Each structure stands twice: as structure tokens, then as C-alpha cells.
């Protein structure tokens, strides 16, 4: 399939990007508001065209462990879910991180806690970047803010996942998942050939040839001393990501007196509030996080040096703000504004919050 111009929902974009990026397998379980991902895949029948395997599992636990098994053979394997389902996957995610298995997990967040609502939310920030499962591990976490980014980040995810042998999380929410926007699709990347798989994933378990030792995929180490050495190795990998793989976008930050810090759909709302503020003569900029881990600590700290205040906009009770305050070492007035439980803040509310919490 060639490059095309389409109007598409964010969830559908994820599914189509999986097919187009040469993904070998998808394993999922239905949950609102992301069921369109698997529905699109099933309707598209990629197994006929690219050979991609798509399977509806019996639970999110099964899905994430199918990702583990499939991805451990050195193939590109993905799953998607929404907040309660992602909670169920945390065991699998820590095993994937511990066994250094590249894979892609998409969370289209909804309101919580518990079963919560099915409307958009961003209250899984802590779960995503502070280690939702046990142990010291990190997921490379991308936060798309448009349908185009939902699509493009799937391609980017595979590069990062295999470069670092690490799971990648695309952290989206119901607003971007359900929203339709203009999308440029890309040329298909063919699925890896057998030779490419072996070259790109020499650690994979696909059947031991006589001329190499057997490959083992495990996160178990009975010897604490060796576990510590391994943990240092993981930390070095995360440090390298912090050094090389940070992504963010700055809008109107150069002359800004105040900035919004936001990611995903909140950053779109904040962008509108920024435009409204500028119309009123208030110099506001937007610092949009694209990677939540690694967090753009240095870059945000630099911007914060010449502003009078920061408003963190997040559909949560205030999670991302902790990392913002750490980055700026609390050197500038920083407040949180958010709606949660599935309520999306309006641009007007965001602007009022800036005026009331920061400017006044």
C-alpha cells in the first residue's frame, strides 16, 4: 500500500500503522475506548496480505504474555488496551522489561480508579513512567497528541524497542483514540525476513542452530550479585535513552512569560488556551512532552529559567507535575490544573486556571 491521505480515528491509525510498519503479531482483548484497534485489524485481515498474526486472547494477562512469547522469538509483536486492562498487564510488562524483550504496548487511557469511566483521562502517568509493575525498570513512553502521531509513533516504537531491547509504551487517551483527523499513511515496511529477524534479534528463541549456544529468555536470576550487575546494565540503558532519545515540542516558548506543560490531548487543549491568551496579550508558550520517559528534564529546566510561572495541564489529579517540579527544582512557581474521571477540561478553563493560579 502506498502513501495516502485519509481521515481516520486515532485507534484505527494505531491498527493501520501496525500493519504498515511490518508488525508480525498483535494479541489483544476488547476494552473501551480502544476496541477499534483490534476491530480494524480483524476487518483488515493482514494475515492475508502481510502475514501478520492477529489473535483475540482470553484476557489482558494472556495478551501481554502472548506478546512476551511471540516477541521473545525476535519478532515485532504488539498489544493495546485501556487503563484497567493495562493494570492487568503490569506483571507481563515487568517481565518483558526484565527479560529485555522489545515490544509495543498501547494504552488508550480512560478515567479511574477501578473500573472508572470510559471517557478520556491521563491518570496513568505514574503507572507508565514510575514502574507500574515491580522492580527497577522503565518503559520508553511516547505520548502522541494527534492521529498522525498515533500512526507515526508505531513506526518509531519499533526502532527504539529493538535498538534498546526494551518495551515501548504508547500512552494515549480516549480523546485522541476516538478523534478523527487528517492522516498521511506511509509506504508499507515489509515484515522482516527470516534472515533479518536473525540479524536484528540474535538473542531470539526460534530454535537453536548447532553453531550457537541456546538462547534463553528469562528475568530470573538466583544470584543477587549477578542480578545487581544486570540491574546496572538496565540503568545504563535507561541513562542512554535519557541522553539520546528525549523528545518534546516547544511552541512560543522564546518570549513566553508563562508556559503550559502538557502532553497528549491536554497539550492540544493547552495549545488552544495559549492562542486565546496571546489574543488577550498574555505571552504564553507551550512545552509539550512527547517522551514521558525519558523526561525532557534539561530542556524544560532551561525554558523554566526565563519564565514567571508554569501551569501543568493534565487530565489527572496532578501526576506529571511532580516530574516538572523535579526538573525545575521548584525554582519557578508551578501549579497543576486538571479535570479527571473522564472530564476533559475546556481551553477556557485552562486559561482561567493560568490567570487565577499563576498570574494573579
Amino acid at each position, binding site marked *: 500500500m502506498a502513501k495516502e491521505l485519509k*481521515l481516520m480515528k486515532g485507534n484505527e491509525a494505531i491498527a493501520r500503522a501496525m500493519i504498515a510498519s511490518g508488525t508480525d503479531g498483535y494479541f489483544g482483548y476488547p476494552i473501551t475506548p480502544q476496541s477499534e484497534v483490534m476491530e480494524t485489524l480483524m476487518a483488515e485481515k493482514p494475515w492475508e496480505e502481510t502475514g501478520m498474526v492477529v489473535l483475540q486472547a482470553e484476557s489482558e494477562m494472556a495478551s501481554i504474555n502472548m506478546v512476551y512469547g511471540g516477541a521473545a522469538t525476535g519478532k515485532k509483536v504488539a498489544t493495546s488496551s485501556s487503563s484497567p486492562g493495562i493494570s492487568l498487564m503490569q506483571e507481563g510488562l515487568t517481565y518483558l522489561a526484565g527479560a529485555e524483550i522489545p515490544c509495543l504496548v498501547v494504552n488508550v487511557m480512560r478515567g479511574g480508579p477501578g473500573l472508572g469511566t*470510559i*471517557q478520556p483521562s491521563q491518570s496513568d502517568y505514574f503507572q507508565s513512567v514510575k514502574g507500574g509493575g515491580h522492580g527497577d525498570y522503565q518503559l520508553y513512553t511516547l505520548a502522541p497528541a494527534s492521529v498522525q502521531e498515533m500512526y507515526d509513533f508505531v513506526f518509531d516504537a519499533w526502532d527504539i524497542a529493538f535498538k534498546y531491547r526494551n518495551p515501548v509504551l504508547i500512552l494515549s487517551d480516549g480523546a485522541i483514540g*476516538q*478523534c*478523527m483527523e487528517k492522516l498521511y499513511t506511509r509506504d508499507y515496511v515489509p515484515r522482516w525476513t527470516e534472515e533479518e529477524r536473525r540479524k536484528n534479534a540474535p538473542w531470539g528463541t526460534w530454535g537453536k542452530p548447532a553453531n550457537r549456544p541456546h538462547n534463553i529468555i528469562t528475568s530470573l536470576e538466583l544470584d543477587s550479585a549477578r542480578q545487581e550487575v544486570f540491574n546496572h546494565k538496565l540503568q545504563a540503558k535507561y541513562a542512554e535513552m535519557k541522553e539520546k532519545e528525549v523528545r518534546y515540542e516547544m511552541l512560543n516558548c522564546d518570549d513566553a512569560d508563562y508556559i503550559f506543560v502538557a502532553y497528549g490531548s491536554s497539550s*492540544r487543549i493547552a495549545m*488552544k488556551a495559549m492562542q486565546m491568551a496571546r489574543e488577550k496579550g498574555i505571552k504564553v508558550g507551550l512545552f509539550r512532552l512527547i517522551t514521558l520517559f525519558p523526561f525532557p528534564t534539561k530542556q524544560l529546566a532551561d525554558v523554566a529559567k526565563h519564565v514567571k510561572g508554569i501551569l501543568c495541564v493534565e487530565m489527572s489529579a496532578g501526576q506529571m507535575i511532580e516530574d516538572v517540579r523535579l526538573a525545575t527544582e521548584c525554582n519557578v512557581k508551578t501549579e497543576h490544573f486538571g479535570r479527571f474521571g473522564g472530564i476533559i477540561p475546556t481551553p477556557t478553563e485552562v486559561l482561567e486556571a493560568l490567570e487565577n493560579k499563576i498570574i494573579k
Partner: protein
Amino acid sequence: MTEEIIIAGFGGQGVLSMGKILAYSGVMQDKEVSWMPSYGPEMRGGTANVSVIISDERISSPIINQFDTAIILNQQSLDKFESSVKPGGLLIYDPNGITHEPTRKDISIYKIAATAKAQEMGISKVFNMVVLGGFLKLKPIVDKQYIHEGLEHSLPQRHWGLIPQNEEAIEIGKGLIEPVQVL
């Protein structure tokens, strides 16, 4: 040009698909677009609404609370969204089932008796296109040829035979819309 629109009515009135056809037409004309539905339990049998933005520039928020145009197809939606039209903006409504007329003085108001007309002509299936035609008469933000392409992309190929009927309905709507209050 940026046009921020809310289309609201009952589920089943073709609210979401009207928005999609408009948005897809915008895409075909290489404009920036967004289509943001309300979703969730309220979708099932109750009211449905969708925000559509068509712009020459990068769209900031697909989620908005102030609109250039509100296209209103039932009383609940009129009650909910009349106040969300920007001062100087446009409100279009179908008088079918409306018991309390809009009261704003700072916006332009038009009505389009699309329900009645569609019933009369036996074209209830393309009722939403009659309404879209009325809107496009007042705000021709997308060219006619791109509406055709928008229809092609929005409808499954097996329904392409219905495109002429849809286009006809748009033309009917253009003739049907009438001013109530013009600023």
C-alpha cells in the same frame, strides 16, 4: 480560515456521519480537520454530538467549548449548545420538535425545515445532507467537488450509487435554509 462547528441531535439522525462527510471533504481539499464525537453511554439512544473543525492552519484543540457554528437538530441540543456559539457566530436549527426558539441576540440564526422536507420528498435517509446543504449555503468552506470526494471516502463503495441522491439533498438544503435573525 478556521471554522469550529458543533453538530448535535438525536442518535440516528446522522449527526456523526454528517460531520464525517464534512470533515472528509475538508481533507480532500487539503485542509486541516478534526472530528471529535461525544461518546459513551450517552451515545446509546440519547443525544449525539460531534465537533468538527476545518482550518487552513494546524488545529490546536479538537476539543472545544466555543463554536463558530452550531447545527442543532433537537430541543435538548438547542438548550445545551445555544450558549456555546461565539458572539457573532451562527446557529442553524431544524424547527421540527422545537418548542423553545433560540433567544440569543448577538448571533445569526437560521432555520432549515429539513425533517419535514425530507419526509415530504421520501428522502429521510439523506435528511442530514439536506441540513449540510443549508450550512454550506451560508458557509461555503469546502468546494462542491471536494464534497463529492468526501462522500466517496465516507461511504462504503457498495453505497456509492447513493452519492447522486446525497448531492441532490445538499442542493435541496441550500434552497431550504431561511434566516430568522441576521446580524
